[in-house]
């Protein structure tokens, strides 16, 4: 034990000139580069166990990932489901979503899909039925289907990519939209490519 501590005070100490950005990436002091957010699709193959969806949505919300949509449905194998997430995050965030999902014990395989992935969304919307002909014309224009038509309301469905759904909704606004329900996006990798790695192995196993 001595009388106090020595050594230079904080502002008198030599400081390194380097710096990292908010995402922990070391940067050139002159260029403060931070990757911007991008919108992307993550597909996860999960086991059909009770609570898996709750676990995934809980994970996403407590880690504050910026999520646009989350859909889920079974696959050809009754023991598995596919969860499709659309997220908007900078690069490190996208990697974290993948890795954190992969940590969930019931998640079999996770992959970020490329920009060319086949992405589809469904919207069911209900408009006022005063002008059924015009509604029908707009529905045709968007390759939609009329699901229900009554004296007061018309309900239609439109499928397509996100942009098309947005455009269709805009087009239907002229009739006054009473209600609408969007499913959120679901997606598969294009062509020969497998959506997640585990599926290829599983497919080969069932074929042999």
């Amino acid at each position, binding site marked *: *034990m001595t009388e106090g501590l020595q050594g230079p005070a904080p502002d008198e100490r030599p400081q390194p000139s380097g710096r990292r950005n908010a995402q922990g990436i070391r940067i050139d002091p002159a260029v403060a580069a931070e990757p911007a957010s991008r919108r992307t699709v993550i597909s996860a193959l999960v086991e059909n166990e009770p609570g898996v969806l709750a676990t995934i949505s809980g994970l996403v919300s407590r880690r504050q990932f910026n999520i646009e949509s989350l859909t889920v449905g079974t696959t050809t194998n009754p023991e598995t489901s596919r969860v499709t997430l659309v997220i908007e995050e900078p690069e490190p965030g996208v990697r974290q979503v993948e890795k954190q999902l992969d940590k969930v014990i019931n998640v079999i395989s996770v992959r970020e899909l490329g920009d060319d992935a086949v992405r589809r969304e469904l919207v069911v919307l209900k408009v006022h039925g005063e002008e059924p002909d015009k509604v029908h014309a707009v529905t045709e224009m968007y390759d939609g289907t009329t699901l229900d038509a009554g004296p007061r309301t018309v309900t239609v469905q439109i499928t397509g990519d996100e942009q098309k759904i947005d455009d269709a909704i805009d087009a239907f606004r002229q009739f006054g939209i009473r209600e609408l329900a969007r499913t959120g996006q679901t997606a598969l990798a294009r062509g020969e490519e497998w959506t997640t790695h585990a599926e290829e192995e599983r497919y080969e196993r069932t074929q042999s």
Partner: protein
Amino acid sequence: MSEQQPTHRPDADEPATEAATAEEVAAEGTPTEEASSEDAGARPVTTGSESVVRALETAGVEHLFGVQGGAIMPVYDALYDSAMDHVTMAHEQGAAHAADAYGIVSGDPGVCLATSGPGATNLVTGLADASLDSDPMIALTGQVPTAMVGSDAFQEADTTGITSPVTKENYFASDADTVGDAVGEAFALADEGRQGPTLVDLPKDVTNGATDREPDEGKTPETYDPPERADEEAVETAADAIASAERPVILAGGGVIKAEACDDLRQFATEYGVPVVTTMPAVGAFPEDRDLAMEMAGMHGTGYANMAITHCDAMFAVGTRFDDRLTGGVETFAPEAEIVHADIDPAEISKNVHADYPLLGDAGTVIEQVHAALAEERDTDMAATGERWQEWREQCLMWKDEYPMDYAAPADAPLKPQFVVEAVDAATADDTIVTTGVGQHQMWAVQYWTYTEPRTWVSSHGLGTMGYGLPSAIGARFAADDDQSVVCFDGDGSFLMTLQELAVAVRENLDITVFVLNNEAVGMVRQWQDGFFEGRRMASEYPWVPDFETLAEAFGARGYTIDDEGEVEDVVSEALAHDGPSVVDAHIDPTENVYPMVPSGGANGEFVLAEDQL
């Protein structure tokens, strides 16, 4: 039960008669020699509870920490016939912390039990604590019968829902035939890969349900496949990065201890002469009495560790998650360093700090791999590199001189907490286990004690759970060797949160010595209020702390009080010598604060040494 056992059971004390040949005995399935201690294995499983108990026995569990209750009662009934030792705790939070500490000291998952509803929710703090520190632990909770689940029944809580964010994995047991397998799997998962807490929720009808199925040997599910060896090519490039550095440091995290990789770390660091900085959970991974030991870095880490981190140009980080208490502001963390990050959990790579060279694998294996890769370069560059690093090592030693871990203690000053820590360290053996609560006392206990062995520092790091100290000392005591001492440093505020566990220490006659560094305040909060809230001490001063000496005696423990430095040596040795729990109430200088300190989110290299530097 008894009539279902084999009719002919050779007594353990009596050798089998000549008629009973070895084959006959084997055919009976009853071991002769270990009959009395191992007869658990001979008991047939008839209920879900017995299957649960069997799974724990198969996993090698010796101690359980828990509290009885309605929905868990069938499991306790099955424990009645087991050789495993159940320790009844005063509160479920105590059970969770005891199990957690048991896991830290022994390396195997500690087990805690609680009933449904309030019992289960009381475990949550302990689970969250174990989760953030990746401690191996398994919790078994009672649940209302399956048919009543979801009806807001008496003592019902959605335990798997509540604990999902704070467990590595949890299970809702659905039938008596498979409940033992679920427990075995939970146990295996808690232990394998990145360790962590798991939970199995046990509805009463499942544990009461009939089954004759022996649980399988516990194993992790097929989808769980933690990496073992890092990619060789990645190791080569990482080793190149380290070899070509001018100022390398090793940052050892808690994963080094969990992977039993301390020997690998010590060999590596010593052979190449690389200074070692540790995170708080890794305290003890590298002996703090060596020149290369820069000790703990971060908010209350040593000045020299923080200088080394700030000025290094390569960091070999192993088994750490770069917690914000370690990094300070990420922008200023090791700003010039190429970071080699080895971890068993891919999600930790580039989560907080970007890894330039990620290495996925077990800490011990990866250190060996990097070691081997560097050894190949030895004949060419490494000899020269070793010399090149000499200057850096000297710089690190200079920082040790410049910013020593030291405190001012004028002759007329009240008792200094650091002095108490040093005195207890001096009076105990190197392998003494130190447990702590959370607060200023915790920091003094980590700063002023010289740790030389792994698994001797037991504390709540990530969650910062006040009240962790006493129950963790109880758990540590059960996991420690008989001749190993267990001491607990606690604060008055922290001790007050779980001191009811003193009743357990007394009942079990546990040789634990608690040193309460009593400053009549939640000292860390008060320190921050003084530093960052203009001294407005809202709710941080505890002028009503009880007399801990009398309180200890009321529980049946031995109590002591220390008021000044002169009494310390005698009281410490008397309390340590007492065979049973004792509490030393050390009235410390209430004005003493914890330094060095890196203000939250600040730069590690700008640690302050006194309040006037804030």
